């Protein structure tokens, strides 16, 4: 038998038919949110129905307010947003899919809740109405984002047409240094392969660094695969995966659990499987990272300085760097740790899980926030767990704000946004111009680095704080 990659094993088992170089694939799960209204509009126009309501899931996250949940849906102040939420609730009633609605005690971000509920499982093909659907690859699933037309097709047929991508293995071995987070690992990978390096590829993260990660850390890594240009990124399921899943509401139970685990164990890439492309990083060489520009590949170790566009390489790169620095209001050569921030955001599907909040609280214990600093848990489940541990108290005592779950300042859809020119240290995934609000400036960092920036009022190497 030919040695197969994990990607090939999962992919091949979902192929229904082939035509003109594309395959018709069976979709195990579809995830969408209140902003996926364009897909429902198309369905209504054509009078189509949801094909497999048990396999599609709705979430309220992108637009929902994070200040307070008082008053329930009726209490959502912005009428447009209230209507979007009402519409998604109405569609759930009409079509019978599971909705984690605005008032659901499990409400949260569409890449946070499905793993938490055991809905995301190894070996699946998962489509989401959001590019960070790559998150679910942390379980050894092929999971990728699609647009509204494709989502309409998935919802009404439970299938999707795809062209087979190439594979890229990203190997990171070695022991991560003190104070280095999963977020730093993925930012370092993107800085290495560039923001389009993974285009047309599915990534498999392998090596001891990922093997030693918790599921939450693996999700942070896979989440940002799209920032490296890849639609999906996978990590092999193992005992860590199974231990995380066992007992979660949608996870198989009893004999089904044993059957499932036996099957999941067959998924990892075979010894000797070949990839179209291989990239290697030294885990021990990775440091806390921070982005200085307007693209996730514009990233450097926090110990570095803002790059000089003249040393960027070719003319195109020079112009790209100059434009980015102008937008970011930064001068070449200044130490990254001199960058003063106006705000801090700890949240998003990249970094809003319980371990992220613990990491932030650990640092928050060491001082008081000098700038407005928000902590937005990824789900009600996480919020509750954090409160049980007393993390909210630690954060509040340090002057951080503790908010209701949602996408919030990651994408500024719900009104949580930066003012023009405002600078934010953020644990989210995109530092694009205007991503956090028109004219806003974003520096991507890990949760501990974000909390450290809040306490110092500027970017700082969190290791210096933790060592003391």
């Amino acid at each position, binding site marked *: 038998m030919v040695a197969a990659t994990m990607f090939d094993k999962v992919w091949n088992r979902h192929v229904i038919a082939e035509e003109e170089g594309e395959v018709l694939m069976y979709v195990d799960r579809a995830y969408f949110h209140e902003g996926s209204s364009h897909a429902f509009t198309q369905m209504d126009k054509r009078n189509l129905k949801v094909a497999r309501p048990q396999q599609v899931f709705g979430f309220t996250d992108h637009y929902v307010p994070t200040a307070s949940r008082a008053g329930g849906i009726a209490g959502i102040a912005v009428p447009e947003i209230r209507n979007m939420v009402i519409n998604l609730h109405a569609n759930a009633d009409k079509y019978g899919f599971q909705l984690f609605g605005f008032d659901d005690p499990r409400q949260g971000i569409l890449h946070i809740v499905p793993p938490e509920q055991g809905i995301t499982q190894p070996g699946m093909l998962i489509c989401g109405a959001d590019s960070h659907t790559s998150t679910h690859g942390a379980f050894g699933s092929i999971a990728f984002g699609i647009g509204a037309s494709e989502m309409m097709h998935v919802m009404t047929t439970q299938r999707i047409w795809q062209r087979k991508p190439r594979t890229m293995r990203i190997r990171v071995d070695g022991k991560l240094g003190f104070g280095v987070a999963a977020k730093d690992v993925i930012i370092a990978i993107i800085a290495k392969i560039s923001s389009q390096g993974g285009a047309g590829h599915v990534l498999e993260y392998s090596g001891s660094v990922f093997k030693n990660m918790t599921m939450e850390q693996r999700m942070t890594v896979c989440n940002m695969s799209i920032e490296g240009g890849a639609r999906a990124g996978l990590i092999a399921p193992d005992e860590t995966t199974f231990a995380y899943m066992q007992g979660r509401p949608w*996870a198989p139970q009893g004999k089904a659990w044993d059957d499932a685990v036996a099957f999941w164990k067959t998924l990892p890439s075979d010894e000797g499987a070949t990839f179209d492309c291989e990239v290697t990083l030294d885990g021990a060489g990775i440091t806390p990272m921070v982005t200085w520009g307007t693209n996730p590949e514009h990233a450097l170790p926090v110990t570095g300085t803002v790059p000089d566009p003249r040393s960027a390489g070719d003319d195109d790169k020079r112009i790209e760097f100059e434009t980015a620095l102008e937008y970011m209001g930064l001068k070449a050569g200044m130490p990254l740790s001199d960058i003063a921030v106006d705000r801090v955001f700890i949240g998003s599907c990249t970094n809003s899980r319980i371990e992220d909040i613990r990491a932030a609280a650990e640092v928050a214990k060491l001082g008081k926030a000098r700038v407005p600093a928000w902590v937005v848990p990824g789900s009600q489940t996480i919020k509750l767990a954090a409160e049980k541990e007393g993390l909210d108290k630690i954060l509040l005592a340090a002057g951080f704000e503790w908010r209701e779950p949602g996408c919030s300042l990651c994408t500024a859809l719900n009104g949580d946004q930066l003012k023009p020119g405002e600078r934010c240290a953020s644990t989210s995934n995109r530092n694009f111009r205007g991503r956090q609000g028109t004219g806003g400036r974003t520096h991507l960092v890990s949760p501990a680095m974000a909390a450290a920036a809040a306490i110092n009022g500027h970017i700082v190497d969190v290791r210096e704080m933790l060592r003391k």
Partner: protein
Amino acid sequence: MEAFTKLKGIAVPIDEPNVDTNQICPTRFNKVPRGPAYAKVLFHDRRFNLDGTEKEHIFNIEPFKRARIVVADRNWGCGSSRESAVYALYEFGIRCVIASSFGDIHANNCTKNGVLALVLPEADVIALRKQLHEKPGAELDIDLAAQTVIDASGRKYTFDIPPARKKCLLEGLDDIARTEVYEAQTAAFEAAYRAERPWLYQANAAQN
């Protein structure tokens, strides 16, 4: 879906790599129902001041206001999966974007809306943009069936396109129509699949 066969029209050069879908359609416009209003959404925050007055931007000036084609750089349409970025292009009048590479999801979204995401080598897109700057309003002539682009000087470029993508665009073929042909195969597939992985179909096992 609208078919794409041939297109001759004004092309606008955008000299910027990594144009993400946030730039093409700023996030807050995502919720606008699809329609002509999207023409103004295209590059909105680059084109308009906060008070709604126009900024200096290539999309705001003649002849580029009438552009049907964008000639971009590398990694056009990276980032978010929002299809509204395509609606903005479409309503502005754009039916083809030429770039040396695309964000995968955006390129798919283009195809599903009859917009051709056309890949040419880096050197060619640079040459084309240079020409468009020198001769504002110059037209490009695109023939999808022949897989060619002819510029104002008569130079011909050929491009590759995945066969399925080409067929769907040429025929205006919709995915659902393609899928419907496979109902019997799907039923057989699903029956076997369900037997093999029954646990996938349990709704909230803990509550059963």
